[in-house]
């Protein structure tokens, strides 16, 4: 009679040779990254405004710390065990290998929980994910950074990069608008950026109180103050969706080529790896093709901004 025993042996996914067999698995480090988080200690929390805080994280494991490298514009998934994970853009310097800086606004379930933790708490990060600003391509040009509100957070990474390699860039303008003077972030760095790094900083607020000596109005009012050499300018824009439209169309009218304007988009994300589809815009993913897009791509995506 036939031998009727036929049992498919269970296979161990964690075994090296199995993982490297077909379907192709040549990026083992990235397999680990899909679900494993790097454990971080919160080393410092800076209160920026009532709703925004700057969290400084230190990856505990030295090997993981050496592995974690990011480029300006990328984001990571910050996980608070038990509460969930959120995509947060990295707003610190990419050359700071010891500490990661994340500017977080208290707005949802996880971020509210994050505001209750103190220094020394352990959180997990996955990443870095997404595309980055092409800083090498921008070298040798003028840079125009336009930030609205919390949009300064993702722009602080390329700004740090520019400051660290200031001799590679020509004129750097930073236009920064906020609702109220109290909502301006990173104010303690304004003098440093202006005096040491020679960045032309223009700030504007919508509703200035009596103590405010700067300009009042919308960010578009700042456009008159600056002169742009369209032949050699790269623009980086980040802010609320309304701002993208106004600023980018203005820059386009000036004649800056679409491939020299970069925006950083935000969407709901659950995985950061192009699997959950929550962040799809038109037909691309914000998490793997973005969050940094050039304006040409954004123009061709439906409903992007």
């Amino acid at each position, binding site marked *: 009679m036939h031998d009727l025993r*036929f049992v498919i042996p269970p296979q161990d*996914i964690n075994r090296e040779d199995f993982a490297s067999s077909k379907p192709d*698995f040549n990026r083992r480090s990235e397999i680990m990254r899909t679900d494993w988080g790097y454990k971080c200690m919160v080393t410092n929390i800076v209160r920026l405004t009532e709703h925004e805080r700057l969290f400084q994280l230190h990856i505990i494991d030295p090997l993981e710390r050496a592995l974690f490298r990011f480029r300006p514009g990328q984001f990571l998934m910050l996980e608070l065990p038990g509460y969930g994970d959120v995509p947060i853009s990295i707003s610190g310097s990419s050359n700071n290998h010891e500490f990661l800086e994340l500017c977080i606004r208290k707005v949802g379930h996880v971020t509210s929980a994050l505001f209750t933790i103190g220094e020394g708490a352990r959180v997990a990060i996955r990443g870095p994910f997404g595309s980055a600003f092409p800083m090498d391509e921008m070298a040798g040009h003028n840079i125009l950074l336009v930030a609205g509100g919390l949009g300064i957070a993702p722009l602080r990474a390329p700004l740090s990069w520019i400051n660290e390699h200031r001799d590679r860039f020509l004129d750097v303008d930073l236009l920064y608008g906020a609702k109220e003077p109290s909502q301006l972030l990173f104010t303690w760095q304004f003098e440093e950026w202006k005096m040491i790094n020679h960045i032309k900083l223009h700030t504007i607020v919508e509703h200035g109180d009596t103590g405010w000596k700067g300009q009042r109005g919308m960010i578009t009012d700042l456009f008159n103050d600056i002169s742009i050499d369209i032949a050699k300018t790269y623009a980086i824009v980040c802010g609320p969706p309304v701002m993208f439209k106004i600023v980018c169309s203005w820059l386009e009218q000036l004649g800056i080529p679409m491939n020299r304007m970069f925006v950083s988009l935000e969407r709901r994300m659950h995985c950061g*790896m192009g699997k959950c589809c929550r962040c799809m815009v038109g037909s691309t993913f914000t998490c793997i093709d973005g969050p940094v897009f050039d304006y040409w791509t954004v123009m061709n995506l439906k409903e992007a901004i």
Partner: protein
Amino acid sequence: MIYKVISKKEFTGFIDALVRSNSSFGPRQVDNDLRGNAVYQFQPVHSVDEIAFDYSATASSAKHFFLPFQEELSRFLFHDGDWEQQITYEANPVVLIGLRACDISALNILDDVLLNGHFPSPSYLARRKNSFVIGMDHLPLADCFCKSMNHHTVTTGFNLFCSDIGDHYYLSINSSKAFSFLREFETRDPNYDDNCMLVERRKRIQNGFQTEIDVTALPTILDIEFDSPVWEKWGDKCLNCGTCAMVCPSCYCYSLTESFATSLNGASREKKLYSCNLVDFAVVAGGHNFRPKKGDRLKYRYYHQHRGFAENANQQICVGCNRCGRACLAGINPKDVINDLRMEKESCMTCASSSPRKI
């Protein structure tokens, strides 16, 4: 691929042996619908008699053996103010019997999406590697449009595929596992008549499709018709229940939720399948909804299914099984929506060609 022919009696013995010693799933009648038609699902089977080989189509697809509705991705254990992350990629080996060609095609598409690229999904891979898939061809139902999507035949992604040729099955053997087990049973090499029968069977299937959708240049049409009133028309009917995504063999969007264990000494991160038609699919923290209208959400489903993220994957994800059309409570089915879009397109074309300037 090796081809063999097996008699139906011997085949029954083969399946019975397989089913008795493995955790197996096959089509079984679970209920009758309102019209009295049988409702089939892939259910656990313990002997060959329980399998309905002549089933029409299952209500749910076979994707849930690979992408469960809910699965734990990782677990956190709390102790002394610290935590520890635990991840296990475990999959119990399963035998899946009687998958249709379109179901297997859908698995191939999922392979493409979930295993290629930068971040392959380990849990999906574990399940995919630990499965033994037996496909069976069938004569198309009245509302299938697999042929239009070119998924009415399948050449890869299964261990064994059986084509019904009269009193025999024509076997396409695609794995050594299947081959070595079939050696225990009486098979023979196909002769000329068997080959003729197979071709005839394939022809009958090919010509049996009553529903066809013209998908020529559909990605472009979807782009052009982005602001079409068709979306609003069908969107108004949509109930936003997400049933279409749940029964779809190739929908894979998901949501992550994290929760504490009741003992408070741990937490787990769970993945749940989601649907782009659900209201909060694109809601960001702070309450802004990037897709607030029903029509927008329905449109995105069609975008994903039929345009297939052309920039990324460059293939349509829909396989044409029409499970979503059958399951939809509001009576929305892909054939009507796409034809509606096409009609609009064609009316534009006739307008353009009949305009006086063109002559």
